[in-house]
């Protein structure tokens, strides 16, 4: 399975570098370079400054969302859990909206220093802050209550939603369009800087997840049973939540809100290979990355030279497909 998905990811990545609005093709360009011929500036910009960072960012974001989804579902023992549950998405959304609407109020030096990173940075801080707040609220005497976190997450989401609403009301026409497009998500803004800022966070977070796998398996039996098995339940919760907040915060910050991957990829894999997190987590990373790159290829070629926000693609393709899988395997899901 792991090998198959690795091959799938490599193949899709290779295709992704050759597909796009323009006719530029990486392989022809590589052959040209190896022959010592010169390739045009526009072609090199398209390949090395647009498609390549976009591909890398797609892999990172897809893997981050899928793995975080799997960790959350394991941690909350709830098939509906997604990274949104720990408040990351709502908080990141509020951060992004604040930056878009109120960004003009920042001191000029700060605005110039951050440039167009104002929105990603604000989104990341917003997501991180909300998660930490929710975590603090649901932890008392060193014990985090998953139930409080779930319900508290809903309350915080309502609160950040209200604050976002106020900001949306204050926004002008142009800002409203920016908000809408941010919410639909896109990899179109991929740059190497974004990859280098978000990449290490996501990679570090993902690297931590294999160590959670056994504990998440134990947790499936319930918290008490897991503790009896010798699993450090509280420490594991801390690590899971911080990991997810970092990975999803970084992913959402650079690509906006991309739904569906975090829920569907883990479930698809559970149906295919079962619920063992030791296999689920790495496979989720590969499948999430592959699906997101595939969706991105569609998003940028279907109405070329214009581009469809990727959130629309993941939802229109993923929704019906997921329903089909679900109905075919109904019996497997009755827990």
């Amino acid at each position, binding site marked *: 399975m792991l090998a198959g998905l690795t091959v799938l990811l490599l193949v899709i990545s290779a295709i992704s570098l050759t597909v*796009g609005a323009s006719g530029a093709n990486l392989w022809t360009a590589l052959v040209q*370079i190896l022959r010592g011929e010169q390739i045009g500036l526009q072609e090199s910009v398209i390949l090395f*400054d647009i498609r390549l960072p976009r591909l890398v960012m797609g892999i990172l974001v897809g893997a981050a969302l899928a793995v975080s989804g799997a960790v959350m579902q394991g941690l909350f023992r709830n098939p509906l859990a997604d990274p949104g549950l720990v408040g990351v998405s709502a908080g990141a959304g509020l951060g992004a909206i604040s930056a878009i609407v109120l960004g003009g109020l920042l001191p000029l030096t700060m605005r110039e220093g951050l440039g167009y990173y104002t929105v990603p940075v604000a989104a990341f801080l917003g997501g991180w802050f909300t998660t930490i707040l929710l975590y603090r609220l649901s932890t008392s005497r060193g014990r985090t209550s998953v139930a409080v976190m779930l319900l508290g997450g809903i309350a915080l989401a309502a609160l950040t939603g209200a604050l976002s609403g106020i900001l949306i009301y204050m926004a002008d026409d142009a800002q409203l369009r920016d908000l809408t497009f941010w919410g639909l998500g896109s990899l179109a803004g991929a740059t190497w800087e974004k990859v280098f800022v978000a990449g290490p966070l996501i990679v570090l977070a993902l690297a931590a997840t294999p160590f959670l796998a056994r504990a998440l398996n134990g947790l499936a039996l319930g918290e008490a049973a897991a503790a009896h098995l010798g699993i450090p339940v509280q420490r594991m919760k801390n690590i899971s939540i911080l990991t997810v907040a970092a990975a999803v915060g970084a992913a959402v910050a650079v690509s906006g809100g991309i739904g569906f991957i975090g829920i569907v990829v883990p479930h698809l894999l559970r149906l295919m290979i079962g619920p063992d997190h030791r296999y689920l987590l790495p496979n989720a990373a590969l499948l999430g990355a592959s699906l997101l790159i595939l969706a991105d290829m569609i998003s940028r070629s279907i109405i070329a030279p214009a581009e469809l926000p990727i959130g629309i693609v993941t939802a229109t393709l993923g929704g019906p497909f997921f329903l089909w899988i679900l109905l075919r395997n109904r019996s497997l899901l009755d827990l």
Partner: protein
Amino acid sequence: MAQHAMVGPQLPGIARVPMAPGLKATLLAVAMALAWPCAQAKAEEVERVLSLGGAVTEIIYALGEGDRVVARDTTSTFPAEARDLPDVGYVRSLSPEGVLSVAPDLIVATDGSGPAEAIEVLQAAEIPLVTVPEGYDAAAIRLKIETIAEALGVPEQGATLADRVEADLTDAIEAARMDTPPRVLFILSLQGGRIMAAGAGTGAQGIIELAGGVNAMQGFEGYRQVSEEAVLLAAPDVILMMEGAGDHAADRRDVLDHPALGQTPAARADAIVRQPGLLLLGFGPRTPEAVRALSGAFQAARG
């Protein structure tokens, strides 16, 4: 910027380090390929123009340079032949590759085109980009025309067009002047009965004032959802809406049946004016036409 520097200028230095001949040749080739930007001179004659923004496209065609336009954005819907060109998407959410795929040698973009990341990539690709300032009065139209004409290398045509439009506009404004200006409510959308109206600092207020009216909605900037009571209080003599613009389109019937709008002087007199959005809010060569169309309706409502 940095992302360009990363693959560009540093590599020639690396290639000079002693290493296996094969690898060296490869790296050198890569370096040369990536250093190509410096060699590529700016085109003398721009033949492939990408036009971003409805008014920008209108002006290019009005200058008689429409045959040089190879692609447009979604908001460029006039003149009709512009619609046949490839559409690179909404002007504020451009995809860099989509833009590069139409191989423009000049991009003329309305103020606010973006996002910034896309613009930066286009700069890295060394495609000249001219930003056209936005504004909602006669001076702004002249500035737009002159900026675009300059970018296309036809400043004389620009001066001629700007003079013509300005004279035409002055006439239209003169003819539109009224002793008691009508109060005009501009409704951007009427989705689900909720009224999205134009306040200060909008193109809508600009065109209303040029056509001899005053904006009935005061006290806020931009386009806002307004309450039904505020609409009744504003007591507009004329209700102005855009036609044929997707979800902005609101039927006349909706206005008359609306609990608040239906009670306004405008609805009672059936003074509901609908004009194409780009004509009203474009602030380009057709603005005199828009002023005449509106002032006719305003005077009818007043008289």
